[in-house]
């Protein structure tokens, strides 16, 4: 056992830090400090800057524009992006679709779809969940029937994040009808502007708009847009969900959120002092911080797993459970730190996706404080999405503990 970080990795961290400090445009950086989902223009500009440096998709294979960085360096890179609060880029395309395309896509599909992701020109959304298929995803019913050289898609997807800003959707569709549920599923790449697709906004409890219902009514999709082999969609989706084993921990995000809480608490007046001087609040922050440290070291363990190491699957399986819980707790504590304003609705002062157009909002001017309550409400979703935590616990009980 040896726990120190190699000097070369420390140097790499400083290189990334310097790059971000020099290249992240000030106006984007300021907006990204607000706790709303980033808007597409900011994300595209930032993605271009990263890509110019060759850092658009470090975790992809080198021949598709990725890097040969070690898992630790990929982590450090993301960690520094979170530290600087850089805009969150199109994770759907980069983390989910990209690795699947690299592994199972045809050369033509790779050439067509990967470059515009790297340049930030094409955005993707994910069409997995359906109204009656949430945790039980394999029961999905959206169907794609072959008609000449096209699939005809009919059905409905739900919770399609950012579908309204996306150009493409990758969807799980049923191509085989009379087989075991998992066996009839295929992975289809669909131009979201194809006639027959309707997107309907779902406003969420943060008064934000990221979610959509997406309807497919006789949507004709070229058969060449089926990824890999028909009927293998389920295994591709499983590959996609397991490919990045540590991102579900969102530990760097939560580290940044802990620092935000500290920042607010050090400045928030409380009686004759500051909130941070209140021992009960300080203890709550310390407890959160301690758990985030534990989570980060669990991530370190997974990052340093070598082929054939026993027990790493077990550690990976808990990252989503505890990572999502801490993510929400950090956001709730930030709201608590704001005192009275921690219960005030916070529409985006930049005017993006405003649900109630009444111009009301709290008198906050510090960029670190803007959007905190919206984030606190949105984070309620963390223990639901990506496989509800109850499902994750079932997986731990069955596959790790053998119950």
């Amino acid at each position, binding site marked *: 056992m040896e726990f120190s970080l190699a000097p070369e990795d420390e140097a790499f961290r400083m290189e990334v830090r310097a790059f971000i400090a020099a290249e992240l445009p000030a106006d984007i950086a300021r907006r990204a400090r607000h706790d709303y989902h980033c808007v597409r223009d900011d994300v595209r500009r930032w993605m271009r800057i990263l890509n110019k440096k060759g850092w658009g998709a470090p975790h992809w294979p080198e021949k598709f524009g990725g890097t040969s960085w070690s898992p630790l360096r990929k982590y450090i890179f993301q960690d520094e992006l979170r530290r600087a609060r850089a805009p969150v880029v199109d994770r759907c395309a980069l983390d989910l679709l990209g690795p699947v395309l690299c592994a199972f896509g045809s050369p033509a599909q790779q050439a067509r779809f990967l470059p515009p992701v790297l340049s930030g020109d094409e955005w993707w959304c994910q069409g997995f969940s359906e109204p009656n298929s949430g945790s039980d995803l394999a029961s999905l019913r959206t169907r794609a029937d072959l008609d000449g050289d096209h699939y005809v898609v009919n059905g409905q997807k739900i919770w399609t994040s950012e579908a309204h800003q996306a150009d493409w959707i990758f969807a799980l569709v049923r191509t085989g009808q009379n087989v075991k549920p998992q066996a009839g599923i295929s992975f289809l790449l669909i131009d979201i502007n194809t006639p027959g697709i309707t997107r309907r906004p779902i406003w969420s409890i943060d008064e934000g708009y990221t979610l959509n219902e997406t309807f497919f009514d006789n949507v004709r999709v070229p058969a060449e847009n089926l990824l890999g082999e028909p009927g293998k969609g389920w295994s591709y989706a499983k590959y996609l969900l397991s490919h990045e084993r540590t991102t579900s921990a969102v530990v760097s995000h939560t580290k940044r959120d802990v620092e*935000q809480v500290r920042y607010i608490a050090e400045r928030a007046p409380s009686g004759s002092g500051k909130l941070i001087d209140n021992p009960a609040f300080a203890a709550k922050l310390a407890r959160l911080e301690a758990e*985030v*440290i534990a989570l980060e070291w669990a991530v370190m363990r997974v990052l340093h797993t070598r082929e054939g190491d026993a027990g790493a699957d077990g550690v990976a399986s808990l990252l989503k459970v505890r990572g999502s819980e801490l993510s929400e707790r950090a956001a709730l504590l930030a709201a608590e730190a704001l005192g009275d304003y921690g219960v005030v609705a916070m529409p985006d002062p930049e005017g993006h996706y405003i649900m109630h157009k009444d111009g009301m909002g709290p008198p906050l001017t510090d960029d670190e404080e803007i959007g905190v309550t919206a984030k606190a409400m949105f984070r309620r979703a963390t223990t639901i999405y990506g496989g509800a935590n109850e499902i994750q616990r079932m997986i731990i009980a069955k596959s790790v*503990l053998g119950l």
Partner: protein
Amino acid sequence: MDFKLTTEQQALADNVARFCAKEYDFRARRQLLESADGFSRAHWATFAELGWLGAGLPETAGGFGGGAIENAVVMEAFGRGLVLEPFLATAVLSLQTLAALPAGEVRDRLIESAVAGQTLLALAHGEPTARGDVDHVETQATQSGNGWVLNGHKSLVLGAPSADSLLVSARAKDGVGLFLVPRQDASLRLKPYRTLDNHRAADVWFSNTRVETVLAPPGSAMPALATGLDHGLTAVCAEAIGAMDAAILMTRDYLKTRKQFGTTLNNFQALQHRMADMYVEYELSRSILYQGLAALDGPARNRGHAMSAMKAVVSSAALFVGRQSVQLHGGIGMTEEYAIGHYYRRLFVIANQFGGEDLHLKRMATNPTPFWGGIGEQVAAS
């Protein structure tokens, strides 16, 4: 970074596990805890012979070249085996404190004798009002002629009833010093007791106790004491991880055999989820132990913060896993002649030893160590 044990560390882990499997079945343990010492001096001789007592000491300090990781390896296995020998008191708390002092004839001889298994030591540092606060020392050292005299009250001195010598911290006008006192000294009073986990400890009262040997003069002992106690923290956290692992596996096996309502208990989802939560706590404890070991053995910006984060997480995890292990066993878990309750008792003691969760959260808050150095200056710069 490398989270795999080296070949030597793995051999050490295997050796200790083999010892526990052979010597520490539940009945054998019961006999030991009812003996006069509450542990086996024969086992202690074995520990010395196999090199475990000096495994966590650098060669420069008279050990075999290891550090906190080696002690953690031993303690984790001891946690699984519910081992009773005073390894923590002598090999961790006392020897690591001594090793952190400057070399000297007395110190070196003491280490040599303890590593050889010939001398049992106990660190008399904690006091009733300290409640785990390392800096709190009220016991007085006063100069008398060309020596020192001690007066005061030390509590929960682990391993004291069987120790040959006590390392006693006491405060003089220049600060805290460390003094060596034979346990048999007529001027000290010792009240021995069993802790809830059947380990032995004692309260010790000093009244004008003359000190022959000064290990660290007043004003110079705190850094070594802090180091020794931080080694104690990582060691008990490692032991808790071994105990949690054993308790989880024992509970898992019980759920798979115990039948109610016509089926084994492992088929009930409420119980599955509880076990998943226990597993999460256990793995996160193991993860943060590595953070503690890194801070202890390597360069650390703020060791106190790292130690306290570790102990806060492990304390609450130890309580949760210990309590739920008994809960999932049901009534049988409450019986004294069944092992699971003894895991709970050890875990309960560790959770509260050297400061519980509250003390360590407070210590974190008073030694803030923000991730990446904090964001205040970033914001100011923008």
